[in-house]
């Protein structure tokens, strides 16, 4: 029977903890909920929040973004003389959780900007909350076109510093037609929203120019592509893989070589990972040149490598750094009289200009649809030593 009392004590302890957590999770004096959005907060206690999938199938994406976000906050705090803190929220790739997380950050009056949500589904789910609260969100990886273009956009709070699928699809297609002389293209999507959207865009662009397009799809959990590879007709010119997992693209390419298929492999920006996708002769498209090749970024990359030994620079991280840079610059610009509000930050975000943009050139602001200005895609070909050579 004594274990019952012990259990009871444990339960009481947990209940007490829950109450304490609840009470400390919010300031006691909150007259009206609307006040949170308009509240002026001292600049030194401002926070930005990262919403990314840190665990689950896309965990590698979120973890990479988090490491770059932490690095960016540290560097920019020093450069701009700020004391901005970073919240990290794990959406676990579940849009409903993104909605709850958005609520969490909206309720905390210190949050001035959101970095993310990383996934387009997360943006859609968290959108209404963030929009109504007037909290600006800059996403480094949500590329679904319909978020900013078309009839069902998410709202004025959303910005992104990477180009959307509507640009990547046609530009990849053009390269395939012009430089690779493709007459028959096999497109395989991985049933996720990024993939199907990009596959549709590229497929439409190809079909418009008279190229034969065959579509197939494989679920993200499949890692043995042998049967899919066998199905690819021998006269296919290009196999287009709008995937998000570079290791899978690598496995696919190897299995293609294993079966002696001659088609060229073309991966989208989700497969861009100089450390992981290293198959000689494959093509990869990306919205930025490899930052390890940009001389101006050398110090930046070195600093990141020092904090993250043994890891390689991927393609999801640098845009996150850029988004944090824009957000913190906006906070600095909005900091008036030692105080900053969400509305002021949202007003300053489109006005941020950065001379040395880590993805090359300078940052010239956003377009009318809140996409990056001057977005273009670069095509690389993977060389024998695994390095990426710019070809288009």
């Amino acid at each position: 029977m004594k274990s019952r009392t012990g259990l009871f004590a444990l339960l009481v302890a947990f209940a007490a903890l829950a109450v304490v957590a609840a009470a400390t999770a919010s300031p006691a004096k909150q007259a009206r909920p609307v006040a949170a959005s308009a509240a002026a907060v001292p600049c030194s206690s401002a926070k930005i929040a990262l919403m990314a999938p840190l665990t689950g199938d896309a965990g590698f994406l979120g973890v990479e973004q988090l490491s770059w976000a932490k690095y960016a906050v540290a560097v920019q705090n020093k450069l701009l003389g700020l004391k901005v803190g970073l919240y990290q929220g794990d959406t676990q790739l579940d849009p409903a959780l993104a909605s709850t997380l958005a609520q969490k950050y909206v309720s905390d009056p210190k949050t001035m900007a959101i970095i993310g949500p990383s996934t387009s589904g997360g943006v859609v789910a968290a959108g209404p909350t963030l929009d109504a609260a007037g909290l600006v969100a800059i996403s480094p990886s949500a590329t679904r076109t319909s978020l900013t273009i078309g009839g069902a956009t998410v709202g004025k709070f959303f910005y992104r510093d990477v180009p959307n699928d509507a640009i990547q699809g046609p530009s990849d297609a053009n390269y395939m037609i012009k430089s690779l002389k493709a007459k028959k293209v096999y497109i395989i999507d991985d049933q996720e929203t990024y993939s199907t959207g990009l596959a549709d865009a590229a497929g439409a662009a190809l079909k418009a120019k008279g190229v034969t397009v065959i579509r197939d799809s494989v679920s993200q959990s499949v890692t043995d592509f042998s049967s899919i590879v066998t199905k690819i007709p021998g006269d296919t010119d290009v196999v287009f893989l709008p995937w998000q997992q570079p290791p899978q693209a690598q496995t696919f390419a190897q299995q293609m070589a294993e079966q002696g298929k001659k088609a060229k492999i073309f991966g989208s920006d989700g497969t861009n990972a100089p450390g992981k996708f290293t198959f000689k002769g494959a093509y990869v498209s990306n919205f930025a040149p490899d930052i390890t090749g940009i001389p101006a970024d050398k110090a930046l990359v070195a600093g990141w490598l020092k904090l993250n030994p043994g890891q390689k620079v991927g393609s999801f991280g640098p845009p996150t750094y850029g988004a944090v840079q824009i957000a913190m610059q906006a906070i600095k610009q909005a900091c008036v009289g030692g105080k900053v509000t969400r509305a002021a930050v949202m007003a300053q975000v489109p006005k941020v200009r950065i001379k040395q943009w880590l993805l090359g050139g300078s940052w010239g602001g956003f377009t009318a649809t809140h996409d990056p200005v001057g977005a273009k895609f670069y095509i690389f070909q993977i060389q024998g030593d695994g390095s990426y050579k710019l070809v288009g």
Partner: protein
Amino acid sequence: MSTEPGIGRDEWVARSEERRQRRGGFFGPGSELFMRLPWWVRWGMFVALVALIPAISSSGYVRRVAFDTLLYMLLALGLNVVVGWGGLLDLGYVAFYGFGAYLYAWLSSDQFHLHLPTLLTVLLVVAATAFLGFLVGLPSRRLSGDYLAIVTLFFLQAFLTIMINGESIFGVNFTNGANGIAGVDPFSLFGHKLVVAHAGIFNVWYLYVALAFFVVVLVALRFVNDSRTGRAWRALREDPLAAELMSMPVNRLKLMAFMFGAATAGLTGTLFASLNGGVFPASFALPYLITIYAMVILGGAGSQAGVVLGAVLVNVLLEVLRSPQHSRWVFYAAVLAALIAFVRPWKWLAVVLGGTFLFGIAVRVSLHALHPAWTGGSTQGSDSVSRLIGHWVAIPTSLGSGKAIAYVALIAMILALTTLKGATRMIAMIPTIYMGAFVWENVLAPKPEVTRFILLGALLVGVMTTRPQGILGQSRVEIV
């Protein structure tokens, strides 16, 4: 007379001595009074407590977490019917949840341009999901135990596959594929549209609607359980063969259990869809099922209070563990509470606590003397408690591959602890606790999102091995 479960031993009779005595201990008179109150007073107190949450905290986040917890509680109640009362292992339960949510979305969004009134939609969804439960329960007539579990698991996987790939079934876009259906209408009661959020802050009325649903489901299920059906379910759970021999309609009972569970899940699905304004297939995958099962079994299958408690515990724990500061409180408080609860007599507790404290100081001082870099790092937070702890736990500036070694060493030490007994165990606790704090500060706390699930897994294993019936469940002997 021992109160261990066993065949041929009547637990009620064995517990008769306990009932006659007054409960002792610190909480004795209070808990006895509590147990004497009628069930509806006890539950009323709980519901009132939940209803007062918006008064305690005006943070939209806290209210939203309370809403999410209510959803989990509803799901736990439904699963309790199938697993706890009916004894049927249904591993496809979240499929009903997902089906309810998607059906609500089909009936109240732009997908098919239907915008039916809320009351009608909710009733339709509950009825349809109950029917789906009936269909899924049909194979249960021929299957027993593990085979039923397997079939329901495959049903869930099939459901998920259909929902993810459903953007062109025979040319019709049913489910919009992995994107999910967005733009789902919120609830509208008596003509008032229940807006999901005011200026981005969660609308507290949704919490009350969820609470109302919870009360309705709780009372309804309780009435069902107190009736002939409930007694028949208990008989079915204990020994299906004997129940059948006593001319109970076993098949009908199984189907009823499935239907009630499914109906509850469907109702919860409507709440979920209307609040989120959209449904996404990722929300109904297997990890969600595992979480709900953990809540039900942890709290005690078969006891409504137990599963509700399990739901609250697990969900609040997972949310609190998201932030490093709060998770530190939880960790140290949990270790302390466990020690206080399970280390008896008191002098041993004093020895363990004092010894750990001194051991920690000794280790840190010696490490610092050996090599300053070994104690150069800092804790996650920077408030006074963190700094205090920073003086007690040795935090090297960089651990590198030592992380994995320390982690595995901690697991080995904890496992070894369970094999020791008596005084050796007490003494061995001291370095284990210090190692635990060390691993926490250096390895676990920097990555709260992963630590949440590690702790949940460890909690599940720990509770199951020491108390398989859950917190408020009753120990049973299963006749196989």
